[in-house]
């Protein structure tokens, strides 16, 4: 991201001033990640689960030998067992295989949603925080309006307009999260803009552009990434809700939300069908939130 500098912002030249070390770098040596992880068993479990999830998403066939789309009619409606960890559905498809193969789609949708919110929201926030005055006012009124509409309703309106499907659902959920990214980015920019080291950088002759790229941006990244992790959990919930409601993945494709929707019809007879895909969502969101909390608390994730 580049922000144009106006000529009157060029306070002399940078020649002779060594690049001031940004405070972002100080924290890097403060804690050894491994030791820090071991002191937090809950966090360790969260990170381990996320690693497993990534494995499921990238190489699903390593974790299950069953076919997620084709089942054996002879093995229909089986309760969980060693052979079928999560049981089978009425077509004899292995639910564990369907959950594992659905990971990729579920995580990708949530990640796309976060990306949309991150790019749009932090652009608005950066612009508002840096430009100030009426741009700031206008942007923040826009964010106020976005915040006034409950997230799911806004996403549903977007889906109504652009049509159903996983990608559209992800974009719609992302639009619902623009407001929080904009607010956090703006408040971080404002906080950092007034910091002593920014003043010092200006005083030692840095241009506005240098201050933005070397001092402000690196310090905004941490808190915004912490928010992105938190929003990932929220996006996961929203995407799976929209899929459950039938606006996301089309039935044979496994996706956590739509797997729960499929299991809903067999709630009285096959309890496992709705239970396990939902548990996958819960565990993912808990893990993402735990990680987000650690990122907020850790100095590298911004001091708050």
């Amino acid at each position, binding site marked *: 991201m580049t922000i144009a500098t106006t000529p009157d912002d060029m306070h002399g030249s940078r020649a002779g001033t060594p690049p001031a070390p940004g405070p972002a770098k100080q924290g890097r040596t403060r804690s050894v990640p491994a030791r820090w992880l071991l002191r937090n068993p809950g966090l360790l479990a969260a990170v381990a689960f996320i690693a497993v999830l990534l494995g499921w998403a990238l190489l699903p066939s390593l974790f299950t030998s069953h076919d997620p789309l084709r089942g054996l009619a002879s093995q229909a409606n089986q309760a969980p067992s060693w052979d079928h960890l999560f049981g089978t559905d009425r077509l004899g498809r292995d639910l564990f295989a369907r959950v594992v193969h659905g990971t990729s789609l579920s995580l990708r949708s949530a990640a796309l949603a976060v990306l949309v919110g991150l790019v749009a929201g932090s652009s608005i926030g950066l612009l508002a925080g840096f430009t100030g005055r009426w741009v700031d006012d206008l942007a923040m009124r826009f964010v*106020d309006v976005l915040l006034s509409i*409950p*997230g799911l*309703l806004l996403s549903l309106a977007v889906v*109504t307009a652009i049509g159903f499907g996983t990608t559209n659902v992800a974009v719609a959920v992302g639009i619902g999260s623009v407001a929080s990214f904009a607010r956090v980015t703006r408040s971080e920019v404002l906080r950092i803009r007034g910091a002593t080291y920014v003043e010092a950088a200006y005083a030692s002759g840095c241009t506005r552009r240098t201050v933005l790229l070397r001092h402000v941006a690196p310090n905004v990244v941490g808190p915004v990434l912490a928010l992105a992790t938190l929003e990932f959990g929220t996006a996961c919930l929203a995407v799976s809700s929209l899929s459950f409601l039938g606006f996301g993945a089309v039935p044979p494709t496994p996706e956590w939300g739509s797997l729960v929707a499929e299991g809903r019809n067999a709630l009285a007879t096959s309890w496992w069908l709705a239970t396990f895909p939902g548990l996958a969502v819960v565990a993912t*969101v808990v893990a993402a939130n735990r990680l987000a909390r650690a990122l907020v608390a850790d100095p590298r994730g911004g001091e708050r």
Partner: protein
Amino acid sequence: MTRYLRRRVFHALIVLWAAYTLAFAVLYLLPGDPVQAMLSSGDGPSVATAAQADELRARLGLDRPLYAQYLDMVWDAVRGDLGTSYRTGESVLGAVARSLGPTFQLTACALVLAVIAGVSIGLLSTYVKSRALRSILQSIPAIGVSVPTFWSGLMLIQVVSFRWKLLPAIGAEGASGLLMPAVALAIPTAATLAQLLSQRMADTLNETFVTTARSKGASRARIHLRHAFRNASLPAVTVLGMLVGQLLSGSVVVETVFSRPGVGRLTIQSVEAHDLPVVQALVILGALVYVAANLAVDVLYPKLDPRVDLSAGASTVRSSA
């Protein structure tokens, strides 16, 4: 006070108008053709001819320039006419008004449950002395905010209705039909409230006035309830608008899971049918609820916190959460 009130109401109206405009922009400006979607919804690709599509477009008034559509809609909305539903042909206002009752019942019930559960857990998590119990009480909200409402609703049905056979799964009238949906709806809100409160309680208990109260010999319970809770609960009040919005969002899912009539059901039916006027009205309803809740909080806040003086002018009580 009245001047302050008038300014706040004016501000609320501006936000509503902006939300209306945003909803219009989302529904009518974003790429996507509702007419094509309506004609092809059902099985497979569109079976309608271009002529049929044009006719439908003209009938719905979608062939006119966008600014004309927008100005007409705003003018109609100001006069209290939110258009007619594409799907049923009835007035949007009537359809929405009819669905309000059951949803109001559900969300009000859920809000009460959420406040009771959220406050109890939030208070207990700082009150209990046992470390183990405390960490359990603090992890309950963390899990609560991570549970998708559609899943907790289904799990409730599965256990309470099918396993224990205590309550009918769907279609029950009165209180017995309201309990499970309200519990499912209340979980995320209760968890949010508990997290907020427990954090504020922890902060407040470190304040000097708590030390003063303790040194005067006040009991632990008295310090927690009379001194800390009163201060810690104020920020929780300011997020009422967000919580009510969360409940309204949740009702979309809960009403589907429990096959209940209401705003949520109407939302799903309208989104499925690409019924733009109804979806737009529902978005505005969401904004209206949020704005009204915030307005109520702004007006009531000085009554709760005497330190806030509205006549001083620039006091907008807003949460940062």
